[in-house]
């Protein structure tokens, strides 16, 4: 199976490249999935070595290529005379056209397909607040993913701001150049305020992947896991471990989709989140999103820690700390029969899949591409942006996020859902245009689309636009305009 770098883009904790995590890696191998017994100690070390080697190689290649995306002309340039059309004097007329009708920018410039990958660098991967300069390589990578997977032109844009207000102000000021804004790697709860306010103020789609992308991918996997274990959402009891950006949005979307709020229990590092907790007053001031969930959820007034919350639960959705053992097998055993375990921390899941299965889990999902059932936001964000850009949607309400999750779940189901196949893998990207079309159609239905087309038309457009970048990259590699990997003896002709 071809392995792509983006197999590791779900960010609920430090990613694979995070060196400190390498030392924390427990004695267990990636190859150990079906084995109930722990593999020998040296496997862990070799995996640590592998990760260290990958990190070193990433730095070497970054130095070789010096950036991952570049500006390339998409118009013919036969001679410099053509610039009288692409630039002055001809372009003045195009400018006047947009001056008369600003919406024409979406027809006459690349705005229809261009987004900003905007960050303040305050929570980059699992590295924390690294600042805007150090965030740049990550934003470049994200821009490459946007192009390669979604056919979206994305501009990496780390900005030097310190307050949420300044970040909001920046986004408002750069909006004229973009058809959408992707917020990236912004600390919680700041990210909630920034997203909410920008969604309200800007007439273009604004998205925060760490909130919405991860929540949508989780939701899609969960929908299929419930189906597989014969459950309905309305009678399911779910525990969410972690109260960060992703889980708070997952809770909100679950409730929206029909999960009983009182059947949800959120657990953070202080234990069960309940309305009588001492820190609730402070929470109301500093994190009203978490506060709201605290008041709405946990009917029956459960208190205590994760083990108390998990007893008799149908589902555990963990997006917490990348430490195996955070969820103990005996707690999985205390869950309802055939429980669903999503251990989504990266790079190390809260419980190893084999341990969860041995403890009775009917289905296990993680954030990793080397185990079955990867909950990966790369399954969501390229499709959502393709869809909202093609429909020229004004915003991305929760209905659209849910539509994307449901379509992704449905596309998996057409291939058959099994305990090893809850979600499409990154090799099943033929589902992407379907999800994009569902997003676009949903925007039309909600009355927020400025382009009207049928679902089939949206699908065809998405398919074409999403196929182009891979062809482009391949052509550039074949022609030698993109250098082959300098550290590989035989240059690969086809990256796939």
């Amino acid at each position, binding site marked *: 199976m071809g392995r792509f770098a983006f197999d590791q883009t779900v960010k609920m904790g430090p990613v694979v490249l995070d060196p400190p995590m390498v030392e924390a890696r427990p004695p267990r191998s990636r190859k150990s999935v079906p084995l109930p017994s722990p593999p020998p100690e040296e496997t862990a070390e070799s995996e640590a070595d592998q990760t260290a080697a990958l990190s070193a190689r990433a730095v070497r290649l970054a130095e070789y290529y010096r950036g991952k995306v570049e500006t390339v002309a998409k118009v013919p340039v036969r001679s410099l005379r053509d610039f009288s059309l692409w630039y002055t004097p001809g372009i003045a007329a195009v400018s006047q056209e947009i001056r008369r009708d600003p919406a024409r920018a979406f027809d006459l410039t690349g705005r229809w397909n261009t987004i900003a990958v905007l960050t303040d660098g305050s929570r980059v991967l699992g590295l924390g607040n690294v600042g805007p300069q150090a965030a740049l390589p990550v934003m470049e990578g994200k821009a490459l993913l946007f192009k390669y997977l979604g056919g979206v032109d994305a501009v990496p844009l780390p900005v030097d701001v310190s307050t949420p207000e300044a970040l909001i102000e920046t986004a408002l000021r750069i909006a004229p150049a973009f058809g959408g804004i992707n917020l990236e790697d912004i600390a919680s709860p700041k990210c909630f305020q920034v997203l909410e306010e920008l969604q309200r103020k800007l007439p273009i789609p604004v998205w925060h992947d760490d909130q919405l992308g991860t929540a949508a991918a989780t939701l899609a996997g969960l929908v299929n896991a419930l189906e597989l274990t014969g459950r309905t959402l309305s009678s399911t009891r779910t525990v969410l471990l972690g109260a960060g950006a992703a889980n708070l949005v997952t809770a909100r979307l679950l409730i929206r989709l029909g999960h009983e709020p009182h059947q949800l229990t959120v657990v953070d590092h202080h234990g069960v989140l309940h*309305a*009588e907790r*001492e820190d*609730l*007053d*402070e929470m*109301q*001031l500093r994190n009203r999103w978490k506060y709201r969930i*605290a*008041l709405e959820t946990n009917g029956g007034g459960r208190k205590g820690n994760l083990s108390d919350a998990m007893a008799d639960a149908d589902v555990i959705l963990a997006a917490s700390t990348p430490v195996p053992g955070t969820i103990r097998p005996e707690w999985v055993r205390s869950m309802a029969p055939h429980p669903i375990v999503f251990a989504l921390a990266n790079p190390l899941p809260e419980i190893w899949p084999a341990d969860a299965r041995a403890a009775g889990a009917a289905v296990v999902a993680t954030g990793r591409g080397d185990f079955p059932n990867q909950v990966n936001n790369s399954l969501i964000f390229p499709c959502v942006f393709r869809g909202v850009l093609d429909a020229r949607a004004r915003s991305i309400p929760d209905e659209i996020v849910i539509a994307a999750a449901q379509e992704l779940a449905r596309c998996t189901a057409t291939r058959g859902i099994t305990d090893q196949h809850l979600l499409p893998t990154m090799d099943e990207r033929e589902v992407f245009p379907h999800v994009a079309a569902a997003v676009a159609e949903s925007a039309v239905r909600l009355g927020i689309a400025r382009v009207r087309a049928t679902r089939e038309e949206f699908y065809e457009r998405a398919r074409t636009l999403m196929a182009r970048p891979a062809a482009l990259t391949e052509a550039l590699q074949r022609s030698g305009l993109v250098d082959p990997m300098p550290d590989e003896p035989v240059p690969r002709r086809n990256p796939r």
Partner: protein
Amino acid sequence: MKRSTPPASESRPDSRAPGAPIHARPALESDLPALIPLIVRLKRLNEEFDPMLKVRPDVEAQAEAVLRAEIKNPKCLVIAAEGTGPDKDKVIGVVRAAIRERPFYMPEAEGVILDIYLLPLYRRHGAGQYLVEHTIAHLKERGAGIVTVEFPAQNEIAGRFYAKLGFRPITAHHARIL
């Protein structure tokens, strides 16, 4: 000066808020065990806003002593808020208020809301507003012609809440640690 005393026919407001899942009554000494933690929570919250409001280590004992004295003091008012339905007999909120004399200004009697705290679960549906209005009615009954409220200057949520109820800043209270 026009004194705004309520017409004789107007009785004390209904102790149950329309829509608010709470009801309020004067606190009794037997409420102390339930009231003390609420006052402590409020003081700890105030500390969040400002290190100048650092809570004393003996805060529980202090809360008990203060509340015990105030419940008996005719110049003071302590109100206990209870839930409704299954929480009917559960104390879920507290108000401390007092009547102060204004020697230089009119109206002469000032009702001061010193502390008001409601458990988070009971805060919505106009419960806080109901509790304030209920307290104001009591203070008015005891002759207050003006009502004031004290809270940390940094507490913007409280500022907005009281502004909605028609309050505005009147004096400023500045501090310096010595």
